[in-house]
């Protein structure tokens, strides 16, 4: 019997995204992003990344319920995946290589969902 958290958390990820960093550092950090898995919500719940970025979900140490991450909607041709129900301290990583919109849900908790938009890294020549 777990409660829904109405809390809105400003994540460190948002702060990092806004902080000025050297170009080389920014390039290396862009290869991996972390999504927090909390009791009944993911944070951030929306994220835009570049193709080829590894998304790492981390089940927060403070959670007391199990959650999973299921890819419920993906760009055409992307194989869907689902983690096992995991708990505090667990992690799961997946590289997202194809541009498009990816939607994720927790199959155990109604309304626990997130969206990742993957942007193409190819630049159009003029």
């Amino acid at each position, binding site marked *: *019997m*777990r*409660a*829904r*958290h*109405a809390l809105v958390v400003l994540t460190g990820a948002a702060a990092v995204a806004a902080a000025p960093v050297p170009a080389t550092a920014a390039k290396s950090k862009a290869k991996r992003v972390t999504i927090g898995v909390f*009791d*009944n919500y993911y944070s951030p719940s929306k994220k835009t990344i570049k193709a080829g970025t590894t998304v790492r979900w981390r089940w927060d140490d*403070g*959670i*007391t*319920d*199990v959650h999973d991450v299921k890819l419920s909607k993906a760009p055409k041709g992307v194989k869907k995946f689902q983690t*096992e*129900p*995991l*708990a*505090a*301290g*667990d992690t799961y990583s997946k590289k997202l290589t194809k541009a498009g919109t990816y939607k994720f849900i927790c*199959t*155990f*908790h*109604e*309304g*626990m969902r997130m969206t990742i938009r993957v942007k193409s890294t190819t630049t159009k020549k003029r």
Partner: protein
Amino acid sequence: MEELALSYRTVTITAVAAAAALAFAPAAGAVTYPPPTKPKGQTGKPKGPHRTLHVCKSKNKVKQKKCFPRITDAVRKANAGDTIKVAHGTYKEAVSIVGAKKRYLRLIGDPKNPEKVKLEGSNKKANGVLVNGADEVTINGFSAKHYKANGFFVTNVKGYTLTNLRASLVGVYGLYAFNSIGGKMTKSIASYTSDSGFYVGQTPPQTKPVRTIIKDVESFGSVLGYSGTNSRYVTITDSKFYNNGAGIVPNSLDTEKYAPNENNVITRNEVFWNNFNYYEGAPFKRGSTSTDGVPFPIGVGILLFGGRNNEVTGNKVYGNYLVGIAGIQAITLAQADAKDLVGNSVTGNEFGLGGADPNGRDLFYDGSGSSNCFQTDGKLFPADGSTFAPCPFTGTNAFNASAQGEVVNWALDPSHEAAWIKGPHVSKPGITPLERYTGGVK
């Protein structure tokens, strides 16, 4: 308190509005559900011949050749309907039984001595045994300790048997069934879990309901003895729930599908001494023990938090300092048509062992909803008995906003004990009342 103000509302309905509401109100239980979900993986009983695989920890090389060193290895090799026999020993693994190819698998430890076949999570692994999408799996004769999530976890199945199991010091639930149809949890003990010892959640509504049976189990030392979020068709019987924060709590929440809980039967149980104030210390990591800012109350035997057509009958309920049996609107539920208590009956329960081990109050009901009835022998809250209708009863119950508000305030009390009415306990061989944890559980 602000959260309470947001979630707890007193609504004054004028006579005209009430009449209008009644005119358009759906009949009891006539809520529109999504179509029944048939959990994936069901493909029927497998045809034999079936094999028996063995798992053992033996250092004897001859024996080693005949058995798998890990349960996980045996499960990988097993086909639907096979039996895996696991020898005495400690197995530091998280066993997954996933998919229709593993249906009807029988995982057998030592049914007579479950403590001798140990699953050890070392606070690193999530679930002792996870069954997902494999129907009619049997797990018999194991103990599971120190898992971050659950001892034994079954999800998305039609039918399961969890029997002769012990789950202790796990992070969420001892024995846990989710989004499943039918199933049995029997002859098992769950203790010191940070949520509930036994849990049945998100039961899909069914046109021909298959009941889930929880029988001959014990649950103690947890935040809740049993929790059933949006559970239905569950029978809990011949079991003991004691020394938890609250004993048996069918509930309705937005966090899972198919609210409200309904058609559950709670009968012939002993529900006593559920006064464990885990806020003052516990052998487990205490998590979010609240619902939208309203903490779970401590000192309650059986709590109907919303729900329809539940029967609470023939239980012995004693020594719970707040209240023996309580019924309250699911005040935190957003789905308005599922908040009220509807068609529940509370009859034939024995309270307080004839005064030798009294509850703080025997019955509480806020009067929400309709067609709820109570056999009122005992100490009532509200004391004037105005919310309680005798059985059978059809119609709108007498809602008392003041009584509901007072009970919510009991839950919000920071000490969690201010509204307790403490009384003496009878002595019970082998069981000591647990109100404050003083250490020693490993």
